C-alpha cells in the first residue's frame, strides 16, 4: 500500500512544479510581449 504521507508529498511536489512553471512561463510571455511591442505598433 502506498504511504499516505509520500502520496501527499508527491501531490505537493506536482502542485509546486505547476506553480513554479506557470510563473516561469508568465515571465517568458511577458518578456516576449515587451520585446515585440514595438513591432506590433
Amino acid at each position, binding site marked *: 500500500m502506498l*504511504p499516505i504521507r509520500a502520496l501527499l508529498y508527491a501531490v505537493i*511536489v506536482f502542485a509546486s512544479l505547476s506553480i513554479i512553471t506557470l510563473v*516561469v512561463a508568465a515571465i517568458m510571455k511577458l518578456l516576449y510581449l515587451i520585446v515585440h511591442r514595438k513591432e506590433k505598433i
Partner: protein
Amino acid sequence: MNIPIWELFQGFYTLFTAEPAVSITRIALILLGAVFVYFGSKKILEGLIMIPMGIAMIAVNAGTMFIRAGQAGNLFVDPLIADSNTLINLLQINFLQPIFNFTLSNGLIPCLIFMGIGAITDIDFMIARPFTSLMLAVAAEFGTIFTFPIALAWGFNPGQAASIAIVGGADGPMVLFTSLTLARDLLVPIAVIAYVYLALVYAVYPYLIKNLIPRKIQGTTMDLHSIPKVNKTEKLIFVVLATAVLCILFPVAAPLFASFFVGVAIKEGNLLRHFEFLSGPLLYGSTFFLGFVLGALLTAETILDGSVWKLLILGCVALLLSGLGGLAGGMIAYKVSKGKINPLIGIAGVSCVPSTAKVAQSCAFKANKRAMILPFAMGVNVAGVITTAIVAGLYMTSIPMISQWLAGG
C-alpha cells in the same frame, strides 16, 4: 619454487575462489558488455555511451585479481573508499580513480554534459510558446513525481526513492546529480539503469504512441509559420532571468542550471570557438568518460546488491508513467486547441534531448508524410529539461528536511 600455475592467471583463478553467484554474475556482465557494444554499434542503443560502457564492463569483470591479502579487486576504480589515506593510495594505483573522484563523485561530469547540451539546444519555440511547452513538460513529469511514493512503499528511503523517480525525467546528468546528492550508495546501479533505459526510449515510446493515440490524430499537421520569430537579445534576456530565478529558488541545483544556461548563452552570444568547444570536445569527451567509468563501476558486487531488480522495475515504471503523462497532456492540448496541436509533442516533454522529440517526429511522419512537428517537439523537449531540473531541485531541497516525516507515513 612452488607457484601454483593457476595463480599466474588470476582473472581465471578468482572465478573459482569466489562465491558461485559472484563468478556467474561476472561472466554474465562480460557477456552483457559484449551485447552493449553490439547494440551500440548497430544504433539500437546509444553507441556514445554503450560502447565505452560495454568495453569497460568486459575489462573490469574479466580483469579481477588478488589485490591485498587474498581479497579480489581490480585496477580500475573503487567507489566505496571513505578513508582519506586509502584514497590517496588508490588515486596512484587505480587508473580511473582520479576520474571518478575528481569528476563523477562531485557532480562535475553531469554539469559538463549539461554545458554541451545547453550549447546544442534551441530555445526558440519554448520562448515563443512558453505556456504550451512548459505545461506539456509538466504533464510529462508524472513519472518523476509519482514513482516516488511507489519506491518509498517498496522499502527505499526518501533520498533513494527520489533518485530512482528522477529516471522518469529521462535526463542522464540530472539522474547522476540527484543520486550523488541524495543516494550516493545507489549511484552506480541507478546511473547504469537510467542510461540503459534512456537508450531504450527509441524502441519503447513508439509502441506506446502506436497503441494509445489513433493513427489519424498522430498525423495531425502543425503550422510552422505560426511559430513567432524570437531574436537573440530576447533569448539572452531569458537566459539571464531564468538562471537568476531558478538558482535563487533552488541553490542546491544551481550548478546544473548554471551549466545548462551558460551553454545556451554561448550559443546565442555567437561565441563560435566556445560553442565548438562545448558542443564538441567537452560534450563528447565527458560522455565518453561517463560511459567508460560507469562500465568500470558495474562489477558483480554492485549487481548482487538486493535492490537492483527493484530499481530495474521502478526505472521502467517511472519512464512509462512519464510517457503516459506526456501523451495525456498532448491529448488535452489537442482537444483544447481544437486539433491544431499534434498530441505527440507531449511525449517530447520527457526530456531525453533530442531523442523523444525525434521519436515524436518519426511517429507523426509515419502517420502523415506532411506532418512536420520537430520544431514544436524540441520546444517541449527543452521545457522538459527545465521542469526535470525543477523537480530535482524540489527533491534535493525538501527531502533532507522532511525525510523523517515521510518515513513516519
